[in-house]
């Protein structure tokens, strides 16, 4: 007797560029899936996936200007999970890393696992990975704070100016309705960011509006300007704001003492 195939889910990332940042395993998962749901922000990338597996269903049609993205993400999740429940071997492919600043990928995995079915996520190359490569900023150099632009403004976070700041979705900064699908409404958010940052950094501190290359025809867009001009910059939906560190903070002598160390000792250990 034939038993019905049990549904499963693998969530994969296709990278930031159109084709070359897809891992071998991701490609193979796409190829072997019964159905592939895609949330990819350019058509070349979509076509690359469609060539590997023609049975694809887009998720992006669920976006509508004015509709809350919270609703859109729920609908995306439902589409993915319903296919798993129907017994299909499902792949959901998002651009970049599928688990970095993506709601429906995590939600779908959680729901599928709650049903007792198999779900996993494979890592992909995110915008932050491209940023490290293009800007030469190693998160280890100063430490790094990485967060969503609106969340930071709305919540009472503490920003450490000694760490590199990586601020995602700057083109939607301060946008509370979740209904905007363009970056035309962030001016007030940018003004507030400038104000908040100027409490901690000099007005002349150089900041960076960054866009990794999504097409291999051209390189990344790297706009450098002083903090006091932040309110006038024009981010897009794929811009990430980078605020470089003010430099390493002083040593914490109390903690060093507890570790039986002195500042001089650790400085000596660091010498090459």
């Amino acid at each position: 007797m034939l038993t019905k195939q049990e549904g499963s889910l693998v969530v994969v990332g296709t990278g930031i560029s159109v084709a070359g940042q897809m891992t071998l395993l991701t490609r193979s998962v796409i190829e072997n899936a019964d159905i592939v749901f895609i949330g990819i922000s350019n058509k070349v990338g979509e076509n690359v996936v469609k060539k590997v597996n023609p049975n694809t269903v887009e998720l992006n049609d669920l976006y509508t200007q004015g509709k809350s993205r919270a609703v859109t993400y729920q609908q995306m999740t439902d589409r993915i999970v319903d296919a798993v429940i129907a017994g299909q071997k499902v792949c959901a492919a998002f651009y970049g890393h599928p688990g970095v600043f993506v709601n429906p990928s995590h939600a779908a995995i959680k729901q599928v696992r709650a049903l007792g079915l198999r779900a996993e996520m494979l890592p992909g190359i995110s915008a932050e990975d491209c940023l490290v490569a293009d800007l030469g900023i190693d998160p280890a150099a100063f430490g790094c704070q990485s967060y969503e632009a609106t969340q930071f403004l709305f919540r009472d976070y503490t920003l450490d100016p000694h760490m590199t700041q990586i601020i995602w979705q700057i083109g939607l900064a301060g946008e509370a309705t979740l209904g905007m699908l363009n970056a035309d409404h962030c001016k007030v958010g940018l003004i507030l960011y400038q104000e908040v940052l100027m409490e901690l950094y000099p007005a002349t501190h150089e900041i960076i509006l960054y866009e990794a290359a999504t097409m291999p025809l051209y390189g990344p867009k790297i706009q450098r300007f002083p903090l006091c001009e932040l309110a006038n910059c024009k981010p897009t939906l794929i811009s990430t704001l980078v605020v470089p560190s003010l430099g390493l903070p002083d040593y914490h002598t109390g903690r060093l003492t507890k570790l039986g160390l002195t500042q001089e000792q650790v400085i000596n250990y660091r010498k090459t």
Partner: protein
Amino acid sequence: MAKSLADFLEELDSNAELKEAYLKNPVATAEKYGLANDDVALIKNKDWDAVQKQFENLGSDPKVHSY
């Protein structure tokens, strides 16, 4: 028949030799690949906005809300 710009982009993003040739001489590489004249002109004029418009999925970028 001319080859498509989409195929060129895919190949360029996964073939180091083609990418190197393109970086050295974009227009000649696009012509040799077999792109149509209009597509070669986009590259010649560095009309990246037009390329982006042709291929981007407008407004489909945000995938997260977290506040």
